């Protein structure tokens, strides 16, 4: 039964955005599902049944509602969230300061690297921010140098030194 325990402490301080949501977007049951399943999901033979019981709905209804919310993108995903570095790879946040006239061309060059997972333009002198995910930690430095050589602009490497918190519970 240990496998079936799910933390269910509610966070009264969490966001309350109910007033923002059109009723048809999420009904009370959808909201309860999202609020509970952001906190965890059991590992047991019938985990949907287990989770559904504490929500007061049937296993079938929980599965159908999750499917519906995934289909129309109200949920981004449902399942295990993996910790990239602990899977043995390298991960870093990198930034570049690229003059406006070169920006689009450099974006194309940077995005061509398969190791670049996300890339965002941001309003700052450092105006291009991307996440590098590599097969090995050592490969981060190599890719950085390749990007610098390709684009002609320095890349500022900002790997995390410490993580204080990752996760967010949106009370909906």
């Amino acid at each position, binding site marked *: 039964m240990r496998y079936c325990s799910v933390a269910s402490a509610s966070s009264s301080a969490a966001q309350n955005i109910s007033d923002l949501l059109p009723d048809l977007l999420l009904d009370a049951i959808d909201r309860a599902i999202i609020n509970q399943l952001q906190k965890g999901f059991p590992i047991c033979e019938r985990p949907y049944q287990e989770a559904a019981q504490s929500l007061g709905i049937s296993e079938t209804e929980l599965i159908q509602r999750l499917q519906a919310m995934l289909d129309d*993108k109200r949920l981004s995903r449902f399942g295990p969230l993996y910790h990239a570095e602990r*899977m043995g790879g390298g991960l870093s946040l990198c930034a570049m300061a690229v003059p406006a006239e070169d920006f689009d061309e450099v*974006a194309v060059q940077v995005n061509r690297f398969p190791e670049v997972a996300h890339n965002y333009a941001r309003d700052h002198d450092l105006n291009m*921010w991307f996440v590098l995910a590599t097969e090995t930690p050592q490969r981060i430095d190599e890719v950085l140098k390749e990007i610098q050589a390709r684009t002609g602009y320095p890349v500022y490497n900002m790997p995390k030194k410490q993580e204080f918190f990752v996760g967010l519970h949106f009370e909906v």
Partner: protein
Amino acid sequence: METLDRAIIEATQAGLPLTPRPYATVAEQVGSDEATVMARMQAMQESGIIRRIGAVPNHYVLGFRGNGMSVWEVPEDRIQACGERVGALDFVSHAYHRPKHPPLWNYNLFAMVHGRDREEVMQKVEKIATLLGDDDLGHEVLFSSRILKKTGLRLPGGKP
């Protein structure tokens, strides 16, 4: 990493099957059995490879349209206390200590702040500033103006 763990990760990184016995479904996909898959996933959760199993709501659809990367210069010897205080705030989704690159970049604490719009993000950033008090040696908020690429993280060495 064990071959079986890697196979389980590949089978579930897009999501957990929506079947009554999802771990049995995964087991079929990776050529194992339900009990073994459950035990491996439990072990990965305990070792931190799996942060958690759960639902990730689409923040944008749910009304959180403002997402600002707030960056802070705090004294290096105060980073632990500052990071923990900021990370504990309910509107902060990620908080990290990252290296400075002076003189261009003097910020060593990053906190992603979410709100309904930019104005609300800025109000929350002010709350962080108040919380940090004298430890706030300077801060900025960087909003994303464009997504240039978003492919998501892939398993190292996994199939593309």
